[in-house]
């Protein structure tokens, strides 16, 4: 990652200040040097990170599989509204027994409902209109809960 060339300092570069300021100084004046042991450690780190990223993808895929909003995805596609509904599910519904029951009931019923909707474009339009309204409300609730507005 770039450091001083574009005016940005990377997190790992700045973090080296907590390790040894002299090393930062010598790297800046004489160029970065790494001992064979440091190179091996870096190689180990890169391999571990590749595996960690692969795990991240698998966790995300598993989460998507278990929590896909079938009807919302059918009616709206993958967009801000579906993400708002998903966040509402995670932040509100999954935190109570009643909410979890609702989520489970939704996942039980929605594949059948999707099959019914697919050949009925007018019904999909109505569902889309309804879901957009719900998504706006869900988005507002999520923003209130996480206190968006920083930055």
């Amino acid at each position, binding site marked *: 990652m770039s450091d001083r060339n574009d005016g940005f300092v990377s997190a790992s570069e700045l*973090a080296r200040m*907590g390790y040894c300021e*002299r090393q930062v100084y*010598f790297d800046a004046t004489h160029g970065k040097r790494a001992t064979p042991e440091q190179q091996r450690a870096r190689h180990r780190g890169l391999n571990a990170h590749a595996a*960690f990223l692969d795990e*991240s993808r698998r966790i995300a895929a598993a989460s998507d599989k278990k929590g896909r909003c079938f009807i919302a995805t059918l009616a709206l596609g993958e967009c801000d509204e579906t993400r708002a509904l998903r966040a509402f599910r995670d932040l509100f519904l999954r935190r109570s027994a009643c909410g979890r029951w609702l989520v489970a009931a939704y996942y039980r019923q929605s594949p059948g409902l999707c099959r019914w909707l697919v050949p009925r474009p007018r019904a999909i339009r109505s569902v889309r209109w309804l879901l957009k309204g719900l998504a706006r409300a869900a988005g507002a609730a999520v923003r209130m809960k996480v206190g968006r507005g920083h930055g």
Partner: protein
Amino acid sequence: MGDGAFTLILLTVGVAAAILFARRWPPKAADIERGLPAQLRGAEIAHAERTFRSHRHGLVVRLDRAYRTEGGLQLVELKTRHQHAVHMFDLIELSVQRIALEYETGEPVSDDAWVVVQNSRTGTRRARKVRLMDTPDITALRERYDDVVQGRVGGPAPARSPAQCRQCAHKARCATKFQDRA
């Protein structure tokens, strides 16, 4: 052998097979979430291996993982080390990540983050919760970084322990210039 004994043997073999199967075939979700704290298991990954920048602070980060939780985004950093230890280095790195992530997404990031240390010998992982540094501290550190790099700091701080110098490629140069680390 009577029917009773045969049934007992069959039952024992069945139970043993079930135990072995369960031990050798852990659920995939548990395997891919190994080393993670209970709070983050099953939580949604909001970002993974993504770059964020804060133009205001002149910082760029590439974060390992950020989970979306009730208390805001929670950062997770993976480290491979010989020992399950967390250092100041990790704290600074994660605190910088928080600044850039909040700046670019506007989404609040939790004051707590996790360092997952993977033992480089055994491969086992352990998670440690850390409290992140405040933004003014990081801003001050960023300014000091510029001073150190530009040579405006007369006596840049050495590594906390001389043992840390053993692996440094600048060891000889440092000993000549500062004469306090052999």
